[in-house]
């Protein structure tokens, strides 16, 4: 059992946290023909956009209300209105997804009231859905911002009230750590039971890296507005990751669609739970293809366990991802720590990790405590820690800006878990060189001193 350590520290060195509006923008980009808009200074948008471009290797539509020192003090409603008018005229999006920023929120305005007024004053916006998520930079990080945007989409677009339930329709609410590749994998798994998934937001149809053949402003695809409006017709909703409990609860409150939370969809027991659920819901046994995938995973665990036992792994990322990957590592015999997350998100699960503590901190602290670890698992931003400590970095999470294919890294489902085990085992083997033979276990190793010897910095 781990203690969640949240020390008050004056300075963050090499931040692990990305901002909440950034997470909101990512979520909005999973809805078709959407233009995300930050209510803040143009820099808020520029920094966020550049990071998203570096991660997805895609053009990222993201606009700004361009607050200045004057409008930041006197109020930004006129800027918000102008931005919406200009976007509607220039890009004709079906939906404008507004995320507030620290700048707009420091003054604090009745943004929803402003939005209602803007709608009244601009009847020509009747066909443009306007959705606003309150995401001050000072609260939470990427996952929280993502979840707030999904909640906003549900509360402001989904038609409320009980609807006729369509048999077999499943609303899927993935967290920010679920990649486009993961969504493809999970969609196939759900469809294998004859069920129909509706994914909100659906990055597998927008930020999956494809060539549309024309220049499109706004998101390249995603959940359709019709799918979103009629989400209340789902028989059930599944929330993927603890961050998604709030959006799922909002959907239930609005439409009566019951939800089931899956805190992770990586690892044997986690996927077993999902498959049991789908099987019960569909009233059919797991089809042969799924059974075969499970069997392949078992084999991967058997072949892989040699390489995990006795390893020590430093792990950093968004809470829900760290929970899924940390649990998998521990289940295969690897030791965990240091474990670092950017916010307290998912702490009720993280506390169940078999390590002494989970730090709500930054990559500087990970680096200080990583001595003796065999591997660092984290985003590209952990590369400095890896360079200085000499511990190899296994890139996972957000952002991945110095490797290709981040959108298609699959860790979900039996197959995703199988492949993750292979990739991790290969990373361990690469360090061992030729000396290691899979038929033998590790030679005795020097006692390593975890967490006390700070690595050199600077």
């Amino acid at each position, binding site marked *: 059992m781990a203690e969640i350590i949240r020390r008050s520290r*004056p*300075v*963050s*060195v*090499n*931040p692990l*946290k*990305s*901002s909440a509006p*950034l997470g909101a923008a990512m979520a909005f980009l999973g809805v078709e023909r959407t233009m995300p*808009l930050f209510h*803040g*200074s*143009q*820099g*808020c948008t*520029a*920094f966020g*956009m*550049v*990071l998203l*471009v*570096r991660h997805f290797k*895609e*053009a990222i539509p993201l*606009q*700004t209300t*361009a*607050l*200045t020192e004057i409008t*930041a003090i006197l109020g930004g409603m006129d800027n*918000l209105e*102008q*931005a919406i*008018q*200009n*976007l509607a005229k220039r890009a004709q999006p079906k939906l404008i997804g507004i995320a507030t*920023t*620290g*700048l707009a929120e*420091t003054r604090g305005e009745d943004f929803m009231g402003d939005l209602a007024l803007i709608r009244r004053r601009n009847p020509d916006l009747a066909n443009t859905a306007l959705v606003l998520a309150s995401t*001050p*930079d*000072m609260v939470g*990080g990427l996952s929280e911002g993502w979840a707030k945007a999904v909640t906003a989409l549900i509360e402001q677009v989904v038609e409320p009230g009980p609807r006729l339930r369509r048999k077999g329709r499943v609303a899927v609410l993935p967290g920010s750590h679920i990649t486009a590749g993961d969504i493809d994998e999970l969609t196939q798994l759900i469809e294998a039971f004859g069920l129909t998934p509706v994914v909100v937001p659906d990055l597998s149809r927008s930020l999956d890296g*494809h*060539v*549309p*053949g*024309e*220049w499109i*402003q706004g998101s390249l*695809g995603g959940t359709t507005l019709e799918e979103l409006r009629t989400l209340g017709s789902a028989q059930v909703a599944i929330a993927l990751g603890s961050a998604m409990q709030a959006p799922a609860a909002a959907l239930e409150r609005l439409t009566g669609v019951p939800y089931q939370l899956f805190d992770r969809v990586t690892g044997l027991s986690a996927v077993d739970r999902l498959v049991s659920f789908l099987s019960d819901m569909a009233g059919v046994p797991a089809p042969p293809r799924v059974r075969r995938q499970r069997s392949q995973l078992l084999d991967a665990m058997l072949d892989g366990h040699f390489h995990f036992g006795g390893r020590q792994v430093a792990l950093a990322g968004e809470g829900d991802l760290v929970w899924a990957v940390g649990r998998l590592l521990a289940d295969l015999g690897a030791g965990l720590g240091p474990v670092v997350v950017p916010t307290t998100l998912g702490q009720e699960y993280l506390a169940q990790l078999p390590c002494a503590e989970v730090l709500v901190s*930054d990559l*500087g602290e990970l680096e200080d405590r990583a001595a003796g670890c065999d591997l660092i698992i984290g985003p590209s*931003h952990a590369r*400095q820690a890896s360079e200085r400590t000499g511990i190899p970095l296994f890139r996972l999470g957000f952002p991945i*800006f110095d490797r290709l294919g981040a959108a298609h890294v699959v860790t979900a489902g039996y197959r995703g878990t199988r492949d993750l085990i292979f990739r991790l085992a290969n990373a361990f083997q690469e360090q061992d060189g030729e000396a290691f033979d899979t038929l033998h276990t590790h030679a005795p190793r020097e006692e390593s001193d975890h967490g006390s010897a700070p690595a050199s*910095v*600077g």
Partner: protein
Amino acid sequence: MLTDTLASVFEEPACPTNRAKSAAEKKKGCSVKALTPGAAAGGCAFDGAKIALQPIVDAIHLVHAPIACEGNGWDNRHAFSSGPQLYRLGVTTDLTDLDVIHGGEQKLYKAIRQVIERHSPAAVFVYQTCVPALAGDDVEAVCKAAALKFGTPVIPVNAPGMVGTKNLGNRLGGETLLKHVIGTMEPEVSTDADINIIGDYNLAGELWQVKPLLEAIGLRVQACITGDARYRDVAGAHRARVNMMVCSQAMINVARTMEERWGIPWFEGSFYGIADTTNAIVTMARLCVERGADPALLTRAEAVTAEGAARAWRRLGPYLPRLTGKKALVYTGGHKSWSMVSAVQELGMEVVKTSVRKATVEDKERVIDLVGSDAMVDDIPAKEMFRMLSTGEADILMSGGRSQFVALKAKAPWIDVNQERHFAYAGYDGIVEFAHRVDLSIANPVWQAVRSPAPWDADWSDEGEA
């Protein structure tokens, strides 16, 4: 006060954009009012200030802000260091809602103490940002107190994002150096062939393509402001004999003020392309000689540049027939509108369009001299670039990272000529590297493969592919 600093930047007499403005326009400031909500792109003043100062590699750059300002943006540029790596750390006070309510000054003070104790930097640059500026944190006072207490220079950079654009931020970064850094230390060595290079950030190591030439001539770089700079060298930059300004708009205030305060003559030049490189180096030597340096300096400069140019032309030989007549779409801005164009033309390529965003009146005149007024456009909409590249009106897009997908989605070559680029294109070696990279890109067999329709789909069309 920030307003005074802003006013002085808005009225910068050496800035040609300013000179063309009426008094009323000047008072309005640099383009911040022109930002259109919903149709603005580009970085903020904080972004610009940090770009201008972060290449001081032995300093800590501490961002006083909520997570967005540093958490989303750190470790994103390729300003190289030949030694210290301190500048690469992403350091921020990561302000929370409680910090905003209670004020962040104490936290900032503690943060400064912690980074000084831990890393012993040559200096700490503290960046003020929008939220603490609105909340009223007095960053300048905190910096002053911390500098006194800890005996390390602690420099306030007062450029919150909301005051304007990236370009304005570059200048505010320059103002910071003028106010707090340049002239505060005496250099250990000083010769009459000392020069400063202003506005080069050593992206991808471009400074290192030029420095050996200068050393061979006997020109000594006192400070590059700020590429691969050490704090001490910038602090002693006032002893240089000549200033070269590389990026015309970014730090014009630094060059002009240094002339005013210390009588250092300056000129504007570029290290892109053979002719411009030669011109810049010879001018440097000439100005030093005019100020009393050994006349042999100029002779050596002419010899070294002649040799460098000859060698570059020799090495370009194999590329010229392959590149001649190829049509380039250049989407940059500022001084690169002309410096890049002139380099591209040296390769025999045709510039079909070049954008002149953020360019000064003088920049634009140079562009017209090079390509004529038809090929010069203020801005090119993405849709239009996409069309030109898909229809073969242009063979390659030369731009920054954010517009690369316009080319790639049009299945056309793209080459990065902006700040995030991974290759260095400066000086005589740089132009050869540039030719090599352009050739590799255009000649890659991938273009034919991705443009061919799927063989199993006779009615294949782009529309059906998504």
